[in-house]
């Protein structure tokens, strides 16, 4: 690749638009355009070199802003597809066949297609991750490709610029001083620009007033922030960085915490407070019957002694007591417990009365704790109830045997043997909810259902996320970069006093021309400079665009 040697003698890398030393236009395009392209200050962005090796081709591809924008749009569209129907992790079925059936049943054939194309699981899919990854590559490559030449150019820029550079800026002025002695003009300009908080550099009869150069780095800083953020997201996949488990725990139970070795949690109590009001229209809209004011689980967190192993529960040390509420997780050792969900009124104990069917008289009360049923419940010397079988979730008979579908007491059933003074040999009765079967013919006694005691169940999620600090840092860097780039502007004013005393002037800003014009108006008035024109508004057919600026 040949370097381009400018008339002034400076060597510029191939692809440079404006000479790095004097600013003369180097390319045909730059020479013939009325307003020169000031992106990257005319420096050659590295990808615009002629090298055609495969690596360069790939590099150039990712460096292109058009490719970057296309990737942004593709990511945007891909993300939106995942909102057409609820994604898989929001529906409450867990096996693949169940999911397929769910989508078809609820959303019809469109739903079935959605599931089969894999669109019901967009955000964890490999292709979505690849899309994000390509966007990340684009950000990195484009930033390196442009940021480095821009930095070099801004750092090395000179005060004096060639006439062809000056004349091709968007804002220019040329002419005599409008008032007073032209000898003092440059000093006046310097004085005013300094007051406007510009940095002023002089070189002979040339002056450069510059302000807000750091604003040019804004985009590059925010790109760094994005990459840090995405890297943190990637780190979540490294074992040990991220734990996300959920657990259901009933009041009174103690359970090992999944994902948190050596820790146990006990649910002391679950509390639900409601707002106690008439259902309002909004609540109807939201499908809420009772408005929860607060729900929390009072827990005790225990830790096993060091060198303990799973299964040992006798040497636990109480670590913390806490009320886990929404917005107020229990935090310990990098882990956090969140109150996510709850289920009310699961049967905890059932109270029966051993009753004589004819007389209706009770021989005694029996209370069965479903978490710990006993073999027998003794009322007195001659009266007792033996528990022959207990089936928490009675689902029917098989070969004469009662079956239970789950260990959860959704539909408790019992086989009782009632030993009474009248019937010391005992009577067998099968008792389920609204169902009593007496296998040995009509009994004299029955177990009459009296009442239940219930307890609540809490759904907690356990989280450990060591990537949070990095995510926060990435986010902060991003915000800083985007604020710098959006709220500050890089403004430059080049002024040159020619031999005959006339002034040549050019100005440029990367954004907010309205603002720089205010500065220009001020310095033009103060130093009696010739009036400037905005070359982008010069054409005749632009007149139509102009209209009345006060409107």
């Amino acid at each position, binding site marked *: 690749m040949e370097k381009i040697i400018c008339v002034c003698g400076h060597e510029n890398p191939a692809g440079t638009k404006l000479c790095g030393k004097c600013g003369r236009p180097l390319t045909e395009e730059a020479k013939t355009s009325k307003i020169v392209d000031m992106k990257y200050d005319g420096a050659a962005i590295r990808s615009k070199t002629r090298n055609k090796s495969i690596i360069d081709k790939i590099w150039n591809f990712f460096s292109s802003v058009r490719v970057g924008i296309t990737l942004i749009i593709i990511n945007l569209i891909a993300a939106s597809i995942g909102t057409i129907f*609820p994604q898989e992790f929001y529906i409450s079925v867990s096996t693949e066949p169940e999911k397929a059936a769910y989508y078809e049943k609820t959303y019809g054939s469109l739903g079935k297609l959605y599931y089969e194309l894999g669109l019901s699981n967009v955000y964890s899919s490999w292709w979505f991750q690849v899309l994000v990854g390509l966007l990340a590559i684009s950000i990195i490559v484009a930033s390196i490709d442009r940021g480095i030449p821009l930095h070099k150019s801004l750092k090395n820029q000179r005060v004096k610029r060639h006439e062809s550079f000056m004349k091709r800026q968007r804002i220019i002025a040329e002419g005599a001083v409008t008032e007073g002695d032209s000898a003092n003009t440059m000093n006046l300009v310097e004085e005013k620009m300094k007051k406007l908080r510009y940095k002023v550099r002089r070189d002979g009869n040339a002056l450069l007033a510059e302000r807000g150069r750091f604003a040019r780095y804004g985009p590059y800083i925010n790109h760094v922030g994005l990459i840090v953020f995405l890297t943190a997201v990637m780190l979540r996949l490294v074992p040990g960085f991220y734990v996300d488990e959920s657990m259901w725990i009933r009041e009174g139970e103690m359970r090992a915490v999944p994902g948190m070795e050596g820790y146990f949690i006990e649910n002391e109590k679950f509390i639900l407070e409601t707002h106690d009001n008439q259902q309002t229209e909004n609540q109807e809209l939201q499908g809420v019957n009772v408005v929860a004011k607060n729900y929390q689980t009072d827990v005790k967190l225990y830790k096993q002694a060091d060198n303990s192993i799973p299964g040992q529960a006798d040497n636990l040390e109480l670590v913390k007591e806490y009320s886990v509420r929404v917005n107020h997780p229990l935090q310990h050792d990098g882990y956090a417990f969140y109150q996510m969900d709850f289920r009310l009124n699961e049967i905890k104990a059932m109270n029966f009365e051993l009753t004589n069917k004819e007389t209706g008289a009770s021989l005694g009360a029996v209370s069965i704790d479903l978490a710990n049923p006993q073999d027998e419940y003794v009322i007195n010397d001659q009266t007792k109830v033996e528990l022959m079988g207990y089936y928490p979730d009675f689902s029917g008979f098989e070969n004469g045997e009662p079956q239970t579908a789950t260990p959860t007491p959704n539909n408790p059933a019992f086989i009782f043997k009632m030993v009474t003074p009248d019937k010391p040999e005992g009577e067998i009765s099968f008792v389920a909810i609204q169902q009593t079967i007496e296998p040995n013919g009509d009994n004299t006694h029955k177990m009459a259902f009296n009442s239940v005691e219930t307890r609540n169940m809490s759904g907690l999620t356990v989280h450990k996320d060591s990537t949070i600090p990095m995510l926060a840092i990435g986010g902060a860097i991003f915000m800083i970069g985007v604020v710098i780039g*959006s709220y500050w502007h890089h403004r430059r004013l080049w002024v040159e006093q020619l031999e005959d005393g006339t002034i040549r002037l050019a100005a440029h800003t990367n954004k907010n021309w309205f603002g720089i014009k205010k500065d220009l108006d001020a310095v033009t008035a103060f130093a009696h400079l010739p009036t400037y024109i905005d070359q982008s508004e010069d054409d005749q057919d632009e007149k139509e665009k102009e209209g009345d600026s006060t409107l």
Partner: protein
Amino acid sequence: MSLIDISGNLLFVAFIAYLVGTLFFGGAIKSTKPDGAVNRADKWGKIALVVTIIGFLAHLGYFITRWIYKGHAPVSNMFEFTTAFGMFIIAAFILIYYMYRLTALGVVALPVAILIIGYAAMFPNDVDPLVPSLQSYWLHIHVITAAMGQSILAISAVAGLLYLLKAIDPKAKSKSRFWMEAVLYFGVLVVGFILATVIFRGIGYEANFTYIDTKDAEAEMVYNMPAIFGMNEYTLLTDDVMEPLVEMPPVINAKKLTTVFWAFVFGSIIYLVIRLITRRSILDMLHPLVQKVNLNLLDEVGYRSVLIGFPVFTLGALVFAMIWAQEAWGRFWGWDPKEVWALITWLFYAAYLHLRLSKGWEGKKSAWLAVIGFAIILFNLIVVNLVIAGLHSYASN
């Protein structure tokens, strides 16, 4: 009079003020005589701005009194959030006005705010207590910042619309002309929605139904508009009311669909009436009104609005949202539809900025992008909240 009543009255005052303000802004930029233009702009424009500021103060008063009454920021349901959004749009307009003195913006900004408030008013405005997940000071921080960001971005759409109203030739057939008229038609549809709701509410229309929901359980539904679409396996309980014409599967909320249908009907009728009576398109009527505005300045305002609004939006809708989500639910991002659409909005404006800065997309292209961006914001506000259900939504399953 209780605080909540005062609050409602103040909102009404604001609404009227914005209506009056629109008229004055219209007068300020319309010019038959080119000479008097500047003077007229000055006088009418000043009055218009004063009226707008009065309206804004009343609006702010509504916001503050409601806050005091409820004990937390009034942004927790559809009505509250949308009225707050309207308020922030006016605030953003006032801010941009003082930066650029562009009176013409008021002609579009105020009607947009009016439509948004009108739309919000169709939703129940009861004072409900907060559910636990909303009981956090993050509610205030996240929602208010996000609304502010969105409203500043909205001004870019306002500037864009104004730009297009002038730049598109209503006499020449073009894609731009078609889509611009479509945007204006959409505005009329919003009016149609408001009109339909008000009329049916005015006559006290009510029809009770029972139906079978997605979980195969029986549920109730009350329609406030004549039922065109019926719920799954519906049974009509009220006498002498319209029977649905079509039955919908349980996953579709037929009541909402009916509402949308009536909005279309009313809106389209209004639009047709306008076209028949005036024998012109809406664009054709508005185009001459804006002939005096400076396109370059509009373009710059549009761009600057995005520049100012983008960081605020990022901070409010993404950063604060992630922080709050982490604290409330233990995961800072769950790909919930509302979160995804906030991300989509963010990506879109990022694309806007890149297209502008690197590809030189200015003028008409930039104006259209700004309008599309606002459409995405509205999609998030309306469709995601009401149609697509999720952790975030104000809709039920």
